[in-house]
């Protein structure tokens, strides 16, 4: 039997990043100081970005199980932004936390490879493998401070709920396979167009929707997020709050809008609307009572998942684009906010930010920019993201849903601006200590510039 050798160009980015992750593991054995590993992973990310934007990399391979199209390319660039910024903010932070293990960078790369596979999956098998590669790496990352009880607990909670959700996903996949005799997403769509919906099909769709709601931390499947975000090292929290979420959205967009469940839009739209409203409500209202900044940002990230879901619910090309743009903008502003949390070498309580503008005016101003952007105030990028997604939903006829989203968005101003109020209007209790480093500075510079560039010239990310 003659088996043709698969075309490797479309998978080149994944191959590069996996090889780089393996090389990092070997270098880790030889190096006492782990700094060079960070630079190697940045180099690998740079080469991968180059491979992603090659026009030759578009296409299908591995018998149609893997697809590289403009949709997956956009998501892969989000994952690369996430990876590069996370490496930059982790470099000195890990030393300070005495958690400088070489595996850290290798796991970051493996998790990113998993996300890229998810964005490119055209087959349920590849989708599942990508998901697990991402999830297993992030479980370990959450617990990388292994002598810290909070980090252990975060990893344990993330692991238990994560593997529970992937078991639900698998059951959904097995039902879908039994009904359609195939695991190819586009063939499933073609098959379902002929047969229409049935009870087992609805069950399988619900299970898959629930499994991905766990991944994007949408309510009522969000319970793990605050604990995991609080307990994990802050750099990992920044990574987790953007990467797996974006990967989950990539799969939801592909499976629900572009392929398998495309024809069942009338069935899944009410489910997703319920999840979106609940997510925005829980995220924004519970965030009001938080006193820990990482927990507050965790609930804020839950709320942002709710806004981004509106793009999927709209069900149009425009909605999908708005969702993708939103996630890119979210990557910059959220990692920026976490970079400031890392920069301040003190507790994670919001109280600790009192009077920051007196002792560290520049740091306070930067935090102000990120908080404004997360609220969605122009001229920051957050405004553009929210505006686009709300416009897309209105054009699709969901005006009432957008009204609800805007109300919750207004509520969110309270807890974001409370941080600003603490920094600018409260008396300073103690001099704030900061732990600056060139790489952290670079990350903050990139994020703050992008927040303004996108906010003033939205054309750089739209279209």
């Amino acid at each position, binding site marked *: 039997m003659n088996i043709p050798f698969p075309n490797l160009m479309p998978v080149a980015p994944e191959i590069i990043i996996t090889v780089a992750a393996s090389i990092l593991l070997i270098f880790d054995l030889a190096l006492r100081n782990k700094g060079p590993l960070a630079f190697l992973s940045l180099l690998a990310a740079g080469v991968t970005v180059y491979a992603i934007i090659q026009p030759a990399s578009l296409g299908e391979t591995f018998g149609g199980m893997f697809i590289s199209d403009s949709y997956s390319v956009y998501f892969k660039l989000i994952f690369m932004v996430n990876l590069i910024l996370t490496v930059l903010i982790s470099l000195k932070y890990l030393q300070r936390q005495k958690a400088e293990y070489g595996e850290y960078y290798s796991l970051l790369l493996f998790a990113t490879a998993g996300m890229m596979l998810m964005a490119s999956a055209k087959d349920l098998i590849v989708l599942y493998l990508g998901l697990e590669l991402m999830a297993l790496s992030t479980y370990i990352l959450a617990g990388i401070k292994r002598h810290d009880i909070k980090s252990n*607990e975060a990893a344990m909670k993330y*692991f238990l709920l994560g593997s529970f959700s992937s078991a639900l996903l698998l059951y959904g996949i*097995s039902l879908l396979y*039994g009904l359609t005799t195939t695991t190819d997403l586009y063939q499933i769509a073609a098959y379902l167009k002929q047969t229409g919906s049935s009870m087992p099909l609805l069950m399988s769709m619900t299970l898959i929707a629930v499994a991905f709601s766990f991944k994007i931390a949408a309510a009522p499947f969000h319970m793990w997020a605050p604990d995991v975000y609080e307990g994990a090292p802050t750099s990992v929290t920044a990574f987790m709050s953007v990467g797996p979420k974006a990967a989950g959205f990539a799969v939801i967009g592909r499976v629900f809008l572009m392929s398998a469940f495309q024809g069942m839009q009338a069935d899944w739209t009410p489910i997703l609307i319920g999840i979106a409203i609940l997510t925005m409500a829980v995220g924004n209202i519970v965030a009001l009572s938080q006193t820990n900044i990482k927990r507050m940002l965790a609930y804020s990230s839950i709320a942002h998942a709710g806004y981004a879901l509106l793009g999927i619910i709209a069900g149009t090309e425009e909605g999908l684009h708005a969702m993708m743009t939103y996630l890119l903008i979210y990557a910059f502003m959220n990692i920026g906010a976490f970079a400031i949390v890392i920069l301040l070498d003190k507790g994670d309580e919001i109280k600790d930010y009192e009077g920051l503008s007196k002792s560290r005016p520049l740091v306070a101003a930067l935090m102000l920019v990120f908080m404004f952007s997360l609220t969605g105030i122009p001229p920051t990028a957050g405004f553009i993201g929210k505006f686009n997604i709300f416009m897309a939903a209105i054009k699709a006829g969901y005006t009432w849903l957008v009204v609800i989203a805007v109300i919750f968005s207004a509520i969110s101003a309270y807890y974001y601006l409370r941080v600003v109020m603490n920094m600018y209007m409260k008396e300073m209790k103690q001099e704030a200590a900061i732990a600056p480093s060139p790489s952290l500075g670079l990350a903050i510079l990139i994020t703050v510039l992008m927040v303004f560039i996108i906010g003033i010239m939205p054309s750089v990310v739209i279209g």
Partner: protein
Amino acid sequence: MVPLSWYIGLSTVIFMIGVVGFLIRRNIIVMLMSIELMLNSVNISLVAFSHYLQDLRGQILVFFIITVAASETAIGLAILVALYKNKEAVHTNEITEMKG
């Protein structure tokens, strides 16, 4: 020959045992075993579908699931060992550093 519906029934029952076990038991080891039950029930249904549909994809997926389940358990137990070293607890009721 055993009809397909028996296999699917068996797989559903085992899956439900896994789900209920995961939700009501508070011992992490038992929760891990419940997840394992859920994964293996999926394997049963996939192999049954694969046999009755005369299509190999289902069995290929089963091999991947078995491999991933093994690494998942390894990671889960590793996290549990790290947790146990810092705090001698395997019950979720005792692991409550963070709340809210």
